[in-house]
């Protein structure tokens, strides 16, 4: 969308900011890899103690909340750009 729009117009700016937000989303995904890897590689007998699991999950959920906000904002910006409102 950003490439198709005429540069420096409102629609173009909205699409570019939307892309930047999706890029931020991707950065958060990278920051989550260590936690995801730890979970994926854990064997059934490696279940962490409850406090450790809750702490890990709290950290994961905080970052996930942030990426959800970023992708939701990107959706709104892309819609505004596409509809040329």
């Amino acid at each position, binding site marked *: 969308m950003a490439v198709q729009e005429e540069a420096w117009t409102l629609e173009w700016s909205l699409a570019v900011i939307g892309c930047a937000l999706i890029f931020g989303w991707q950065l958060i995904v990278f920051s989550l890899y260590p936690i995801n890897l730890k979970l994926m590689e854990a064997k059934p007998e490696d279940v962490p103690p409850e406090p450790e699991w809750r702490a890990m999950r709290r950290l994961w959920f905080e970052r996930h909340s942030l990426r959800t906000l970023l992708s*939701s904002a990107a*959706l709104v910006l892309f*819609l*505004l750009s*596409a*509809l040329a*409102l």
Partner: protein
Amino acid sequence: MSGVEAAELANLILVGVLAGNDLGHWSVVHPALGKVPAHESFTAEKAIFGRYRYFMPILVPLAIASGIVVAVIGDKSDTSFWLAVAGVSLLGVWQFVVLTLYPLNERILGAESREPTADEWWALRRSWYARHTVRVWAGFAAFVLFVLSALLA
């Protein structure tokens, strides 16, 4: 931004959130919960259903209402109008499927006293998931139709 444009934007956000949430759960969450043991699958699905009870009764009426508003207001082309009407109809299908799922949901959420056996649970879940698949695609198709309606208005 005019009132019609604001309504279109609100409609696309609401239906987009509904369709995106449904697709994510249909393609990732529920299949994953089909691969864990029955007790864990049941416990997790029950917790998820309980959470949706607070979320969907707000989102869905707003999505349907926004679709009706988009269809009836504004000076839009015939194509745009009928696309919006088709979108609202598909959201109606979505809601109808929900009504057919109520008995199953009640069985899952009300199973305080006796957890279903593994066989019962997988049979219940298969029936639930088949109907859920219909509503997921109805919601997704509605989103596409509302996008086309907004673009062709």
